[in-house]
């Protein structure tokens, strides 16, 4: 016992003397750690930002949420890899450009076989693959694009049709659209046309494409899908929605000026260069009238000589 007591008192007394020093050391050590770990964190954050840029040819399994959400949900357990009966999935290795450990497949080497019971989604313990996806035909793994019209055999006038034939949603996700073959002047071209609302991105078309490098490819939808814009209205769709009744034709809308080559006259078209401005146009209105409304909608009056022929809906087409 005495030895133990001696020991403890010896240990305690210098500690008591140097308490402010110890506190200073503690604060310094903490600051050092905080800085070091903070730097590591910054580096890791930058790397994680890089890792979000998935290479376009790496396709996530069905039901995968958007890449950012997916990387927050997927714990890299590989259960989807194990339960895929066709072994198409693999977990990204550290050297691959796909985020380490996450599952993906490559359409050209092994496309999704579109199992009806979707075992990969059922196996996922985190919901990184959305369990509410029960119809494989509703999955959106990517979007097929006929990427190269120069090499697609159908674009060259042949009847390859392989992508169309292998498509699990034939005549829905891929259709063949007829166009005249202007090269021969007497044949039709059967253009494989992908319809984004039905295409699942399974990749069977890319796998089956007979050209040396696939001419049709599955890519992330956000990389290839355009967006028309909220405000666009397609006249013919609006017309059919309105029961065949055009929303514009009987409104007497103004026919906007067409610029024509000098000296050319087109019947019914107004050329601001040579024709006098019609009544109601800015610059020809009575000074006290502000033409806030177009002619025909309560404005100063329809322009002279605007015939029915060049109707706006026709022009929109």
């Amino acid at each position, binding site marked *: 016992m005495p030895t133990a007591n001696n020991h403890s008192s010896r240990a305690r007394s210098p500690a008591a003397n140097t308490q402010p020093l110890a506190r200073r050391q503690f604060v310094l050590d903490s600051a050092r750690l905080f800085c070091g770990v903070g730097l590591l964190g910054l580096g890791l954050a930058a790397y994680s930002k890089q890792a979000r840029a998935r290479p376009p040819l790496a396709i996530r399994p069905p039901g995968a949420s958007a890449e950012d959400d997916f990387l927050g949900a997927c714990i890299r357990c590989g259960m989807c890899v194990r339960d895929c009966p066709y072994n198409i999935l693999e977990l990204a290795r550290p050297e691959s450009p796909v985020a380490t450990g996450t599952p993906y497949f490559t359409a050209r080497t092994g496309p999704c076989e579109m199992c009806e019971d979707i075992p990969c989604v059922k196996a996922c*313990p985190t919901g990184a693959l959305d369990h509410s996806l029960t119809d494989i035909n509703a999955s959106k793994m990517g979007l097929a694009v006929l990427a190269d019209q120069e090499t697609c055999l159908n674009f060259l006038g042949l009847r390859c049709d392989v992508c169309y034939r292998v498509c699990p949603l034939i005549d829905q996700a891929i259709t063949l659209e007829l166009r005249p073959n202007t090269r021969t002047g007497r044949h039709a071209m059967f253009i494989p046309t992908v319809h984004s609302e039905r295409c699942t991105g399974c990749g069977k078309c890319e796998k089956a494409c007979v050209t040396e490098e696939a001419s049709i490819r599955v890519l992330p939808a956000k990389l290839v899908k355009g967006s028309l814009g909220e405000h666009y209205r397609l006249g013919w769709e609006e017309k059919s929605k309105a029961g065949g009744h055009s929303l514009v034709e009987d409104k007497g809308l103004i026919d906007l000026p067409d610029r024509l080559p000098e000296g050319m006259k087109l019947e019914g078209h107004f050329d601001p260069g040579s024709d006098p401005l019609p009544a109601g146009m800015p610059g020809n209105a009575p000074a006290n009238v502000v033409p806030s409304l177009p002619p025909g909608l309560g404005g100063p009056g329809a322009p002279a000589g605007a015939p029915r022929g060049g109707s706006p809906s026709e022009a929109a087409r």
Partner: protein
Amino acid sequence: MSSKRTGAEAVAAKGWFGAHRWLLARRLSQGVILALFLLGPLAAVWIVKGNLAYSLTLETLPLSDPYVLLQSLIAGNVPERLGLIGVLIVVVFYLLVGGRVYCAWVCPVNPVTDLAGWLRRRLAIKGSAHVSRSARYWLLAMTLALAGLTGTIAWELVNPVSMLHRGLIFGLGAGWTVVLAVFLFDLLVMSRGWCGHLCPVGAFYSLLGKWSPLRVTASRRAACNDCMDCFEVCPEPQVIRPALKGAGKGVGPVILAANCTNCGRCIDVCSKDVFTFGMRFDNRPENGTQTVPKTAADSN
């Protein structure tokens, strides 16, 4: 101090097998767990599917890593039912046996860093970069904060633990460079650097098992002959002193520090059988002050 090998006394007193019992048990545990995972991909015997992040045993028993699922939760994702059941089972298990049992008995990086530690001793490599052992908790906080800030499980991009285990099962690729880096770091830069100072996975599990009942206890500490072998082999030597040398300060013999990995190497290497596995409740300060038969000291 003579230049004798660490543990030589124990081998002399208990025989080689007696002085390596827990080490062998631990290697067996690590090996069996890895073999169960590998049996599927290598021999198509599917007893366990998945990896340490989440696994399904015999298609019924889910086990998930609470640390990675916590990061996923912070990143804004709620796991599915099986994932949650798996967390529950794993958390209860480690609450009982000690969180860092994961490190010593399951983690595939442990043999790597143990090898580095052993080589360091054999090659007498002295000198070690000084970083506080609490660095791991800062790293743990950083990984959790990063999950929230980036909305992704950023740590899993670089985590050597999951990278090695997943790599062994699903294909290692360049992951071996990370494992080699950890090995060389432990060997040449910092003694017990990865597991003992930096690893946030271990930090998480140490917090999980802070109150676990199963503990190593210096139940016969009066028999200690100060040979220092336990300090030499222990991956977290700071946890031993309070329990082993605390008799005079009224500290009980149970090693209560959360960072004890319950690896049992101290039990193996002690020629005087000072240490045993026991319960944290047998922790009256007078325990182990006299040299008494082991059984008597253990019974409450």
